């Protein structure tokens, strides 16, 4: 196995949230104990509902926020504990694309300036060279040279996402963290951007951490999948293992809840009761136990560890080490 470009060990992030004037601040464990290794040119998809800590994880991976605890290795070097200078050096190795193409570009900056900015602040290239590289990257993502001097409001959502991708890749990072890169896009434009990402991964040798809540997209893009619930990884493993035979009841529920664009599809639908619990007072034991259809006494008391079962890691007391029923045996959905 090749050396991973990125390795996360037990990353944890806790936020203090002020609650009113006199009451003590509450703490939210936004992410706890996330570990993974990302091979060069591979794609790790992170899925989970809103509030499960996906963006918080992305912020730690891109070094915008230092992790509360845990270690982060980039190309073998520990950047979580490193000083500012070292972090700066590794900044160019990890870049990020954001969900909202309308908010992630500075409205008063031309496209050219936006794409050249990472080069300007991180390298000592001449302005002509910067411009050349920016133009080359623009061509790669399918923008034209005359777009260079235009402002973001003149572009559609899909094009803005191309601009954001060009800007993230202009430093030639080894890792690109994509936080819901296509959630705000329409189906036809989404396909264009996904294709672009596939092409760029091959031509530029980048590894992706692909955050998404859309299982269709994840299945299309990912090599490995990590499912998060309330800040924890509940299941992690190769894409096919997880999609063909999900073991964690939450993964199964997520898959059965995702609508399939095929009216003939028949499948079992697990409709979960209730909603994501408040992160301020997470349930004791397994965080999923209040909604879990398989809940046992043990789940309320003890937190299940992430264990290897059936070719992937899963954190569930009820999960068996045998291939489970596949959710693709379908029954009428809403008939």
């Amino acid at each position: 196995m090749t050396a991973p470009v990125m390795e996360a060990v037990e990353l944890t992030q806790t936020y203090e949230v002020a609650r009113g004037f006199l009451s003590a601040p509450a703490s939210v464990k936004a992410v706890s104990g996330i570990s993974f290794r990302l091979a060069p040119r591979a794609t790790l998809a992170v899925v989970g509902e809103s509030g499960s800590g996906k963006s918080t994880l992305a912020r730690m991976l891109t070094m915008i926020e230092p992790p509360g605890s845990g270690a982060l290795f980039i190309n073998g070097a520990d950047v979580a504990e490193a000083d500012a200078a070292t972090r700066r050096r590794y900044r160019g190795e990890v870049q990020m694309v954001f969900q909202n193409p309308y908010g992630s570009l500075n409205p008063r900056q031309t496209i050219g300036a936006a794409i050249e900015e990472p080069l300007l602040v991180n390298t000592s290239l001449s302005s002509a060279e910067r411009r050349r590289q920016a133009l080359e990257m623009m061509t790669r993502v399918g923008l034209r040279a005359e777009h260079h001097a235009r402002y973001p409001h003149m572009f559609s959502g899909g094009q803005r996402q191309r601009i954001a991708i060009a800007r993230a890749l202009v430093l030639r990072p080894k890792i690109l963290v994509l936080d819901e890169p296509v959630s705000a896009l329409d189906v036809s434009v989404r396909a264009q951007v996904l294709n672009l990402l596939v092409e760029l991964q091959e031509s530029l040798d980048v590894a992706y951490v692909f955050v998404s809540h859309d299982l269709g997209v994840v299945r299309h893009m990912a090599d490995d999948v990590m499912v998060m619930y309330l800040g924890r990884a509940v299941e992690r493993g190769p894409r096919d293992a997880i999609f063909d035979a999900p073991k964690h009841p939450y993964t199964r529920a997520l898959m059965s809840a995702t609508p399939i664009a095929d009216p003939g599809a028949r499948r079992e639908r697990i409709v979960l009761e209730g909603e994501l619990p408040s992160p301020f007072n997470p349930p004791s034991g397994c965080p999923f136990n209040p909604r879990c259809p398989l809940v046992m006494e043990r789940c309320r008391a003890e937190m299940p560890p992430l264990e290897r079962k059936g070719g992937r890691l899963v954190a569930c007391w009820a999960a068996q080490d045998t291939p489970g029923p596949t959710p693709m045996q379908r029954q009428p959905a809403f008939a």
Partner: protein
Amino acid sequence: MAERLIDNATTPTLADERVNAADAVDPSGAVLPLEEIAASSVEAVPAERSALAGFWAAFRENRGAVAGLMVVLAIAILAVIAPLVAPHAPTEQFRDFVQTPPVWSEGGSWRFPLGTDAVGRDILSRLIYGARISLGIGVSVMLVSVAVGIVLGLASAFLRGLADTVIMRVMDVITAIPSLVLAILVVAVLGPSLVNTIVAVTVVYLPRYVRIVRAAALAELSKEYVVAARVAGVGTLRLMFVTVLPNCLAPLIVQAALGVSDAILEAAALGFLGLGAQPPTPEWGAMLADSREFIRAAPWIVTLPGLAILITVVAINLMGDGLRDALDPKLRRS
């Protein structure tokens, strides 16, 4: 929503076809704008307006604002070319023509169109030169307080913590003291002069700029493009002044325009109290003060500087209101 309407750029495959089409049409190889290339197969619509043209169209809809702008421009031009248009020097005393009334009243003459004051100085000339001083005070107060306000506001928004607390509490203290009292206090400490008037009024008006910049910067800081810039490795200083500041300017410009008129008023008040410009400087507030005992005998000496202040302030405020409406996209029609 409006963005979709003005969206005329296209994605690569389509775009490439169009570029090729353009090459075929135009032998020089220059790439034509999309609209022209596509014109043959596309229904015609008026071209999209540039940001500046859009702003002007919105501004022009407000008649009061346009009138205000004209008046302000006229006064500014008068101030600049004062030596060319003023019939006399502002401090020249015509001892034989003390308290001459304006032309339109009995005893007036075209030599002194607006009459003369108690020591025989031509009021028109003094008003024209006074515009230099009043506008000068207004504009310089505005420039200084905007500059200082930007630095303090951005510092407070970016550094948070102790710096934020200290800056904002000092601003609170400044706002807690009645503005004129504070200005008098500053002038009393520094001594009355034109420069010190500017300092005093700047201190008085600083808090509003700091607050505006801080609030706007905090709003911008929560947006994703700021995080994106951080990920790209942009340092704090560049983030403050290059990334965030340009996006905070709209409310600041409006406030700055309105601030000019407030500063003129404040400086006039100080002048009136004898703490601002010292005689014989033709400052409007001081002119008002010098002549207040003649309000019955020679009312024009008091009225005319007062009118000048009034007209200038009203014009600037009208313009500022129009500016606010035009710069705020929420108040604009599509």
